Structures are given as structure tokens and as C-alpha cells.
């Protein structure tokens, strides 16, 4: 027989090993692989370690027959501290890590919500192994539970592993675990009770204590030392009553009549439409105390929340608090991809714009006639029409204030006039580098109002309507020579402002020039009277002579008339040159009035550059470019000739390109230094001499215009009218984003100390996004989401400030707020103890009052726990009551060594969980 046995061990015949044995063997193997069978004791946990330190999890899959399990090792990573370790090992060598942790009360009631980590809360342990079904299946069969439990017991015994091992059984949602830990002569059982209905005797501490003691002393009946009790009551507050913090979207229905909030129009909304703080959880904690100092029974309780020595608070934020500004921006971005035309959106309302191509002027007539019935006589201001044939998507009484807000100069007493138009300087404010428009300029206002339309006043059709009205007004102003307000004068600023702003600047340039031209028509200058004369004079132009002597020759006419009829009379002089005299005649050289430079918007500049590039790079292309560019040179030459009869190219060059005039020694007959043209100007047929020969003496005002204001204005207006809705939105988007960021920047919130930095970082994104002429919607989306995220944070902070801080802005409170924002449990600091406590208490009280009002008058006796008179109704019944009872008692018999016993209890309205750790001496029993 011995032989056989020996042979058996030699053979290692495991062919008959059962599934169960294989399973246990595999468990042991994994445990060894993880190197768990060690008995090092780490230093005791410090307060908050469970929450602040990180947890580590390793897992392996195991099969038991055809069922797959996963074995998970979960471990708190503590900073290793060798010195403390050894000292503890010496004095308390007898107890395992698990039992020591179970007695340690520093991390009681830690709120851990990851999977399986509630075991740490139930038993206070820092390291454990869990065996759970790999798939979400329930193990409810008693036999199976027993088998699994035995498996882990055997495995932990065989592998000498002290780390507690658990089996997860029952439905997964129940977090139901049974476990065991063996070693050092102790066997600890981890038992659990999970009930839906709370037995009456378990509802209070006294009952639980009795239960605990019964369990410990069963069989031995010795008198115990008083057990230690920790308790925590949790209260939930969801009804904020008067401390709710929400923002209503701007309500345009209230904007009737004279007193409507014009200020509101220019603002973007900010904040959350429902309270960003979802609920407040109050934890009132009584740390370890002997059982005999506290009574908590059905008839009386010492555990009043207000008496609790420790309070901590946790807030739960609403996941998406529907932030107004973010919604505004994101909704608007969505409009950017709308391909509908204004006509498609507004139908007959804009039908006359259909004929814009050729029929512009007749369309204008129809427009101005129908639209300006009463105010047409008042030329000095824009008229906003009172009657309308068809009602648009925005009703009249809302539209009018909007138009007056955009064009305040149309009103006699503007409510919100623009600041001095030329004081707008996009450069010198904090928004430098964002290519949009100045704060509170016309385009700025328009973009904000457009966002209101898109979000509140009817979406795409409303925006189309607004745009339509806007363009009508622009057209009207162009027709009537009324400058567009809030734009400022000057050339389109293609470097610092957005395209829409440039287009409006361009229109203002056109209006200004048109005004000048028309004024000069009404009060004609002397040379204009000459017109017929000079026309007929043209043929004599070749005869060059001094003009002063010429007047004598034509003595037939009256003196005045004579002067006018001179065919060679200089015209278009601006000023006399201080030094230069004409080379041939010796007369003073006059600077001519020249045509003004041509304003261009960014898209036109790009087009121009494109044309220039397209010509190519060869010699011919260069000549072509020179010819294209020489229009202004030619114009200047003609003006010069007109102002300086008898001038030669040398005279022109001395004024225009002085470095091409090489001075020599000696003086000429007029006392000027001699000189000659630079060699490059003397090249035969060079563009300069060619231009000079081909130029006629024509003063600037009679030349063909380099800049055709009518054409340019019509082009700009056509551009505005022909945009599709998405394009309109894109024109406005950069400015709207800027306004949104500016709104965010105006928020003050102490708790978010680096708000300015974050605004700055969004600003740099915005600078980058607004630069190119072709806008990328994606980068704006990013910015909008950034803004929305921060808006939510600001709303949360504001809400918390209002709820808990009121006007308290101290550093302590701000610090408290910052921690709360992280949505973790935060103890109420000593410095704020009284203040925060009274605020929270009164919030609960308010909520209680409100609840009582709602459910008519219900008596307090309905409540779960009775209270003494003074505190009636201040707090609701606790949402959750938790107790931890600890004792050191000998088990299983009176002669055994005393070992730690512990019971965790959690009571909710419809749920009772008891998690007990009961240790037994395995040597003396």
C-alpha cells in the first residue's frame, strides 16, 4: 500500500482530480503568482487615506467547470514607510493586517463608489480578494455559495494567505459578499445580511447593539467590555426652495412698451436654466464612542444631527445644467450649415429681393416707397417703418426695439447711442488680436441680437428676418446718404476686423464719398462752371504757355469771365510746393489734388492678389501687372499736369520719386540745383515715361474714378442680400463668439481663481480662429464647448456660494467651495463651523416647511424617527443611518483569545445591510 502511495506521488496522477480541485488549485496558483502570502504589516491608515490614496486592482479569470469567474485583488497603495512597519510588527505581531484595519476607526464611513470598494467601507480593510462571476449572473443557490466559500477557504489556507477573500453572491446589484480570512491562529468570517424590509429591532442603535452582542457572546456568555460605536447619519437635500440658483432665458414677451429692457438686448444670457447643483448630501458623524454614552432607540435618541461633532458635505452637480450662453453659441453654430436662402425662409416677405441683379433701382423704389411713409421727409435720420405689408417671423413690437437698438440714431432720443464712433479701437483693449469688431459696435450688437433671434425669437426664419431688416436699413441709409452708426469712419480694416465689419466700413466710405460728390454738385466750384469751355479747349492743349500772360490775350470777355475761360488755367491745385519750381517755366510746383486711395475689403484684396498672381511670372506678366497698377500713377500724372501746366516728366519725378532725380553741381536759371533723371527713368519706353506721354492734364475731380462709390456700394449691398442663412451666421459668428467670451470674462467668481487664465487661453484660440478669411466652424465649436464648460462651472460656484456662503467671501469659505466643486465629501472646517451649519440647517428647515405645506398638515408622528420638541421638523428623516460597532471578544468560547469583532450597519428606508466580521480562535476553542 505504501508502495502504491509512493508511486502515486511519483506519478503525479491527477487524472481523477475533480473540477473543484482544479478550481482550487488554480486559485492557489494565482494567489502565489500575486505574491500575497506574506505577512508584512503596514503602518496604520491615516484619516482620509481611503479616499485620497489610489486603489489598485489586478484580476485573473478562472473557470469552475464551465462557469467563468474573475478573481480580483484590490489593494490600497500606501506610501511604504519601513520604520513604522518594523516597530508595529514587534509589538502587535499577533494580529493580521486585516483585523488591525477593521479596528482602526480613522477611515470609517469613507464614501467609495467604485465597484467592490464598498468592501473597504464595510470592513475597513485595505486589501482583499474577490471571486465573482465573470458575467453578470447571480449565484443564489445555497449549495453553490457554500462550495465557492469552501473553495476560497481551502485556497487561502493552502496558500497561507492572510488577505481576506470574498465571494460575491446573489444579484450583482446587491453587492453581497461573503468572505473569510485565516492566519495567525484566527479565522475571521465576513458575513452579510441584506434585506429590503428593515426589522423593527434593527432600526435603532440599541437594537443593533443587542444583536451584535448576542452574536459575539453566543455560546460563551461572558460579560463584555462596552463596545465602541461610530455613527453617521446622512441627510439629502434636493429641494432648494428659496436658495435655488437659476437663470431665466431673456424673455422678450415682456419687452413691450417704452420701458422695455434695451440693456437686455445687448447682453448674452449667462448661467444655468435649472440649478446646476443637483443635491446636497449632509453627513453628520459621531466618531468612536463607548456604547454606554449614547442612546438611540425608538422613543429617544441622542443622535441629533445638530449635536454631531463632525459635519461634512458633498454636493452632486447636475450632469448637464443647460447653460444659456453655451446653448446660444452652439445653436448659432448649427445655423452656420443652413443652406437656405432668405427667400426660401421668408417667402413673399422678401420677394422683391429676387430681382436684385438687374432691377436694383426699381426694387429700391418699391422699397423706399412702401417702407418709409411718414418719415421720408426727415432726411437727417433713418426711418424705421411703421407699416408692413406682410408680417415677418419677428413681431413688430419686438422688431422695432431691436432695430432702434442697432440704429439708435433713427430715434429722437436714442436709448443706447453708440459711443463716439471713432473712439472704437480694436487695438488697445484686452481683446487685442481677435479679428472681430469693437465691443458694443454695430456688428457686435447685431451678432448678439441675431443670437437672441436664433435662440428665442423663432430660429432660422427669425434670423433671416432680422438680417433682411438689417440689410433694408443699410440700403436705405445708402440711398439717403446717412452714415451707418457704430462702425466708425475710415477704410475697411482688413487686419483687425471681421469681414462683415469691413463690408459696413466700405459702405460708409461709399456713403461719405457720395455725400461729398453730391455736395459739390449743389454748390459748384468755379472750375465746374468751366466744364463746357475746357472740353472745347482740349484740342488746343498742345500749345503750352504760361498762364499768367495768357489772360491778356483774351480781352474781349469781362475780367471775371475771362479768367474762367482760360484754356490753360491750372486746376486741381492742393498746395504750393515750398521749394520746387518747374524746370521749364520757373513757376512754382503745385501739389495736385489727387484721387483718394481705393478702399478694399479683405475678400476683394484676396481677389486682387489672385489676379496678380494668375498673370504669371514672365516678362509679359510683369508688364501686364505694371499696366494694371499704373491706373493710379496715370491719375496722379494727370492731376499733376492739370495743376502744373507746362510741367515735364522731370518735374513730376521730383515730386513723386525724388530718388530718381540726381542732382548735379550748378544752378539753373530759376536758382535750383541742376539735375537729371536717374538712368532707369531714362530707359526708352519705360512705364513711367510712357504713362507721362499718354496722360492728359485732367484734374482729379474730372477723371474717371478709381473708386466708383455707387458700384462698390451696390456690390457690398448685393453681397449682404445674397448671402444664404448659413453664410449670414458665419459672418456673425466670430463676433458672437467674442461677445460670448467677453460675457464669460465679466463673471466674477472667487472660487475659480484662474478664471482669467482660462479666458485668456480661450482668447488665444479665438484669435487663431478669427484670423483666416475662410472660417473654420470646427474651431468655433471647440471654443463654444470650452465656454459652455466653464459657464457650467461658474454657475455651480455661484449656486453654491448663494446656498452656503451668502455674502461670505472669506478665504476660508472660498477654499471650502473649491473643494466642494470637486464633488467629494468635504468636512465643514472649524472656521466656518457655525456659519455653514446654520445655513445648511435653515435650508433643510425651509425644505421641510415646503414639504409640509405641500402634503397639507401632516403630523410629525408620520416621520421615521421621533424628535424632541425643540427640533421638530428641522431635519427630515435621515436618508441613511450607518453604524459601526467594534468589540474585542473571545470566541468561540470564553477561554479563547479575544479577537476583534465588528459590525457595520447601513439603514435606509427600504434597505438594511449588516456586514459583520466575526473572528474565532482556531487554537483555543
Amino acid at each position, binding site marked *: 500500500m505504501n508502495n502504491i502511495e509512493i508511486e502515486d506521488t511519483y506519478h503525479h496522477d491527477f487524472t481523477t482530480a475533480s473540477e473543484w480541485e482544479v478550481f482550487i488549485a488554480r486559485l492557489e496558483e494565482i494567489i502565489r503568482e500575486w505574491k500575497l502570502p506574506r505577512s508584512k504589516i503596514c503602518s496604520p491608515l491615516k484619516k482620509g487615506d481611503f479616499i485620497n490614496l489610489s486603489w489598485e486592482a489586478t484580476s485573473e479569470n478562472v473557470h469552475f467547470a464551465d462557469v467563468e469567474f474573475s478573481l480580483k485583488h484590490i489593494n490600497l497603495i500606501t506610501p511604504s514607510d519601513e520604520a513604522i512597519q518594523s516597530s508595529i510588527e514587534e509589538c502587535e505581531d499577533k494580529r493580521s493586517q486585516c483585523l488591525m484595519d477593521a479596528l482602526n476607526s480613522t477611515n470609517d464611513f469613507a464614501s467609495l463608489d467604485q465597484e467592490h470598494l464598498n468592501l473597504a467601507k464595510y470592513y475597513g480593510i485595505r486589501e482583499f480578494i474577490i471571486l465573482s462571476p465573470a458575467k453578470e449572473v447571480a449565484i443564489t443557490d445555497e449549495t453553490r455559495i457554500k462550495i465557492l466559500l469552501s473553495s476560497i477557504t481551502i485556497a487561502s489556507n493552502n496558500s497561507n494567505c492572510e488577505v481576506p477573500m470574498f465571494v460575491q453572491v446573489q444579484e450583482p446589484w446587491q453587492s453581497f459578499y461573503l468572505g473569510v480570512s485565516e492566519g495567525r491562529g484566527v479565522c475571521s468570517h465576513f458575513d452579510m445580511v441584506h434585506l429590503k424590509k428593515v426589522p423593527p429591532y434593527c432600526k435603532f442603535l440599541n437594537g443593533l447593539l443587542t444583536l451584535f452582542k448576542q452574536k459575539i457572546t453566543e455560546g460563551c456568555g461572558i460579560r463584555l467590555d462596552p463596545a465602541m460605536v461610530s455613527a453617521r447619519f446622512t441627510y439629502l437635500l434636493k429641494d432648494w426652495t428659496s436658495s435655488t440658483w437659476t437663470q431665466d432665458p431673456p424673455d422678450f414677451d415682456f419687452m413691450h412698451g417704452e420701458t422695455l429692457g434695451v440693456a437686455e438686448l445687448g447682453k448674452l444670457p449667462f448661467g444655468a436654466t435649472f440649478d446646476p447643483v443637483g443635491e446636497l448630501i449632509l453627513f453628520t458623524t459621531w466618531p468612536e464612542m463607548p456604547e454606554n454614552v449614547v442612546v438611540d432607540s425608538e422613543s429617544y435618541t441622542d443622535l441629533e444631527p445638530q449635536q454631531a461633532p463632525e459635519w461634512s458635505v458633498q454636493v452632486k452637480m447636475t450632469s448637464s445644467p443647460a447653460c444659456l450662453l453655451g446653448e446660444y453659441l452652439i445653436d448659432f453654430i448649427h445655423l452656420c450649415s443652413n443652406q437656405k436662402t432668405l427667400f426660401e425662409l421668408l417667402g413673399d416677405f422678401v420677394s422683391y429681393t429676387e430681382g436684385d441683379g438687374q432691377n436694383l433701382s426699381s426694387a429700391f423704389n418699391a422699397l423706399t416707397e412702401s417702407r418709409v411713409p411718414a418719415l421720408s421727409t426727415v432726411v437727417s435720420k433713418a426711418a424705421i417703418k411703421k407699416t408692413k405689408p406682410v408680417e415677418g417671423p419677428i413681431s413688430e413690437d419686438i422688431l422695432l426695439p431691436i432695430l432702434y437698438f442697432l440704429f439708435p440714431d433713427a430715434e429722437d432720443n436714442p436709448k443706447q447711442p453708440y459711443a463716439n464712433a471713432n473712439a472704437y479701437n480694436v487695438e488697445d483693449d484686452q481683446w487685442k*488680436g481677435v479679428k472681430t469688431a469693437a465691443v458694443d459696435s454695430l456688428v457686435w450688437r447685431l451678432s448678439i441680437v441675431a443670437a437672441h433671434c436664433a435662440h428665442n425669437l423663432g430660429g432660422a426664419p427669425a434670423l433671416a428676418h432680422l438680417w433682411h431688416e438689417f440689410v433694408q436699413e443699410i440700403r436705405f441709409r445708402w440711398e439717403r446718404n446717412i452714415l451707418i452708426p457704430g462702425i466708425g469712419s475710415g477704410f475697411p480694416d*482688413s*487686419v483687425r476686423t471681421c*469681414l462683415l465689419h469691413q463690408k459696413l466700413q466700405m459702405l460708409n466710405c461709399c456713403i461719405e464719398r457720395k455725400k461729398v460728390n453730391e455736395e459739390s454738385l449743389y454748390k459748384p466750384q468755379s472750375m465746374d462752371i468751366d466744364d463746357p469751355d475746357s472740353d472745347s479747349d482740349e484740342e488746343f492743349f498742345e500749345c503750352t504757355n504760361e498762364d499768367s500772360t495768357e489772360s491778356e490775350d483774351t480781352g474781349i470777355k469781362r475780367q471775371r469771365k475771362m479768367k474762367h475761360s482760360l484754356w490753360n488755367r491750372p486746376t486741381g491745385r492742393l498746395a504750393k510746393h515750398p521749394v520746387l519750381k518747374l524746370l521749364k517755366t520757373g513757376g512754382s510746383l503745385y501739389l495736385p489734388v*489727387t484721387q483718394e*486711395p*481705393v478702399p*478694399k475689403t479683405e*475678400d*476683394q*484684396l*484676396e*481677389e*486682387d492678389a*489672385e489676379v*496678380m*498672381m*494668375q*498673370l504669371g*511670372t514672365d516678362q509679359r506678366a*510683369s508688364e501686364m*501687372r*505694371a499696366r494694371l*497698377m*499704373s491706373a*493710379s*500713377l496715370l491719375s496722379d500724372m494727370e492731376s499733376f499736369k492739370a495743376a502744373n501746366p507746362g510741367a515735364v516728366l522731370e518735374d513730376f519725378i521730383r515730386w*513723386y*520719386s525724388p*530718388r530718381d532725380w540726381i542732382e548735379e553741381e550748378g544752378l539753373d536759371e530759376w536758382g535750383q540745383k541742376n539735375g537729371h533723371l*536717374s*538712368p*532707369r*527713368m531714362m*530707359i526708352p519706353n*519705360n*512705364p*513711367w515715361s510712357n504713362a507721362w506721354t499718354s496722360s492728359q492734364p485732367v484734374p482729379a475731380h474730372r477723371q474717371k474714378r478709381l473708386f466708383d462709390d455707387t458700384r462698390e456700394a451696390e456690390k457690398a449691398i448685393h453681397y449682404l442680400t445674397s448671402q*444664404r442663412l448659413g*453664410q449670414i451666421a*458665419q459672418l456673425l459668428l466670430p463676433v458672437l463668439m467674442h461677445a460670448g467670451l467677453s460675457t464669460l470674462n465679466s463673471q466674477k467668481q472667487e472660487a*475659480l481663481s*484662474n478664471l482669467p*487664465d*482660462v479666458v485668456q*487661453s*480661450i482668447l488665444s*484660440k479665438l484669435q*487663431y480662429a478669427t*484670423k483666416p*478669411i*475662410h*472660417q*473654420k466652424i470646427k474651431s468655433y465649436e471647440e471654443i463654444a464647448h*470650452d465656454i459652455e*464648460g*466653464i459657464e457650467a*462651472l461658474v454657475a455651480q460656484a455661484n449656486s453654491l456660494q448663494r446656498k452656503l456662503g451668502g455674502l461670505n467671501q472669506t478665504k476660508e469659505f472660498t477654499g471650502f467651495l473649491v473643494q466642494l*466643486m*470637486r464633488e467629494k465629501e468635504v468636512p465643514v472646517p472649524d472656521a466656518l463651523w457655525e456659519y455653514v451649519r446654520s445655513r445648511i440647517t435653515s435650508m433643510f428647515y425651509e425644505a421641510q416647511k415646503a414639504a409640509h405645506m405641500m402634503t397639507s398638515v401632516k403630523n410629525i408622528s408620520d416621520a421615521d424617527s421621533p424628535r424632541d420638541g425643540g427640533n421638530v421638523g428641522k431635519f427630515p428623516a435621515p436618508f441613511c443611518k450607518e453604524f459601526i460597532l467594534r468589540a474585542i471578544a473571545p470566541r468561540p468560547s470564553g477561554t479563547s483569545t479575544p479577537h476583534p469583532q465588528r459590525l457595520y450597519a447601513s439603514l435606509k428606508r427600504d434597505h438594511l445591510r449588516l456586514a459583520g466580521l466575526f473572528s474565532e480562535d482556531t487554537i483555543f476553542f
Partner: protein
Amino acid sequence: MDQEVLTTLKLLMIGETNVGKSSILLRFTEDEFNENMQSTVGMDYKTKQITIDGNTVKLAIWDTAGQERFRTLTPSYYRDGQGAILMFDVTDRHTFTKLETWLNELNTYCNKIDIVKMVVGNKNDLPNREVSMEEGLEFARRHQTLYIESSAKTADGVRCCFEELVEKIIQTPGLWEANSTRMYGGDSLGGTRHRLGKRGVQLTDDYEPQNPYSNCYCSLV
């Protein structure tokens, strides 16, 4: 061999009249020199492909006229320039003192803040120097620009001038990759029609400016 073009760079040439901008450009693009170069009317445009450190880039060089009156015209073409050559004539102090004005103009009209600037002292082959190299270097240092001296006549420093400028631009990634947003063809605003279609260049589209708060609200709390 047709090498793949990494990017197209827009360079500007500015400075007083008759300092030799067009001559330098002619020397660079055609390797020619013409003692009597015509005075540029308005502006001119040349292209040239060069390879630096294995990267082939196409240069679109905008040569502008120096006459004061043209300044109402030419700055329109500064848009989106990535590099600028500010040229003066070392034999004429006036052209050097005027550089300040040109620099201001460039800063006003160029929409790229980080445009790379290079000060070039031209005609250094001539004997009658009025501006010393030290003065030129001092100016360049004060305005944070590159500095080089050149001669279109002897071809001295011409290639080097463009190469260094391009190298510097390439080393400033935000400057040229960002340019992709200006791609022709994909016109979303519908305002202008681009007859050019695609130029032979495709730039990477996903440049992100470096930004310490990219996850801004995480850092907020």
C-alpha cells in the same frame, strides 16, 4: 525631378525706391543683373522654388514699389505675408533711416503677428558706404529681425538672404502651417470665386496653437 512641395510661402520685399529690391529679386530668380532696372510700378510678383534641408518650398515673392504715393496701393498685398525683406541701400543713409517707417507700415498691414523680418543692406559692392554694418546690425537687433548684406551685382549674399529667411519661417511652425486655412477652393463664404482652384500645395490642416490650458476647465477647479 519633381520634388514634393512642402508649402508655399509668401514673401514681401519692401523699402525705399531704388535700393535694389527688383534687382535682388531678378538676381535670385533668374540669376541675372541689369544695371538699369526699370522702376517698379506698384508691385510685381515672382515665384521660385528652393530646397532647404531637403524641404522644397515654393516662394511667392511680392516686390513692391518704394514710391511714397504707392503706399496707398501696395500694403493691400501684405496680407498673409510670412516673411518680409526690408531693404536699404548701404550707400544712402536716407534709405536706412526710412526703414523705421517701412517697419511700422508692415506691422500695421500685415495680419500675421509673427511674420519673419529680414533687414538687407544692399549694394555692398559699392565703395561709397554711408551706413556701416554695425549700424545695420544694431537696427536689426533692436527690431528683432534677421540681418544680411548683399549685392545684386556680384550676387553676394542674395541666395543666402532668401535661404535664411525661409529657414526661419519653416522653424516657426504656427506661421506656415496655419496658412492652410487660407486654402483656395474650399470657399465657405461664397463671396469670391477663386479661379486658381488648388495650387499644387496641400498643407497639414490640423495645426493647434500650443496652449497650456487646452483642457481648460479641468485646470479650473
